[in-house]
């Protein structure tokens, strides 16, 4: 699984980096782990994924946040 680490960046950069990553990786079966330190991402990332019709699952919530994100039909 690919990993996108945007730790150290704050709003809106994690979402912008994720959006660019998705544009650069157009595979239909894409699965990526997003790692971020911005606590706002706890709600922002699922909201972005919902709006973009992406699957999203929170894997870890400690010093950093980890999300599994995938394209779905």
């Amino acid at each position: 699984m690919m990993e996108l680490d945007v730790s150290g960046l704050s709003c809106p950069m994690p979402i912008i980096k994720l959006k660019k990553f998705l544009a650069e990786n157009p595979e239909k079966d894409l699965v990526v782990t997003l790692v971020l330190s911005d606590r706002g991402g706890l709600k922002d990332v699922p909201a972005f994924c919902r709006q973009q019709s992406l699957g999203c699952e929170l894997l870890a919530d400690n010093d950093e946040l980890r999300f599994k994100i995938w394209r779905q039909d």
Partner: protein
Amino acid sequence: MTENIDSLPDSFSVIHTKGTLDWAYPTFILASTAAVMDRQVELFFSFYGLQCVLKSTEHLKVSPLANPGMVIKSPLGPQWFKQVDLNNYLPQLIWTLPGMTRLATWGFKKHMLLQGQVPLDELRDLCVSLDVKMTACQMSVDMMGFAESDFMDGLSFAGAASYFAVTPGQQSLFV
């Protein structure tokens, strides 16, 4: 939030009238975020807001003077000192002294970078690359004696009517 996303407007606009660094950030943060959420974004810069779309953003400053809402924390020093909101303790008079605006601006920039925020010109370029539409108020440009060559690339020049012709009827922010 549980809104039905189908009911959300597909465009977003901001009328920006402030010419200081601290006011510039919210506009460009909101604009870039809305753009990656597939909104069509229109920014209209009027009066002092023109300062935010000049070629360089280096001249933009922050002043704590008459700004009691501004949290002022030192980016340097021991941990206990960095937690203190200096605006609660320092008299406003101190911000009138020569060099204090420069000091506050330096501290603000340092603090933003430490928080993981990008420099303003980078954020602004990001907005351009995300296809955020920016328009400078022609009347303000003329009134303040600017030339079109003073401004960043990718900026349009038009009046308020042009802005209202392309922006949503129910959602605009005034900054």
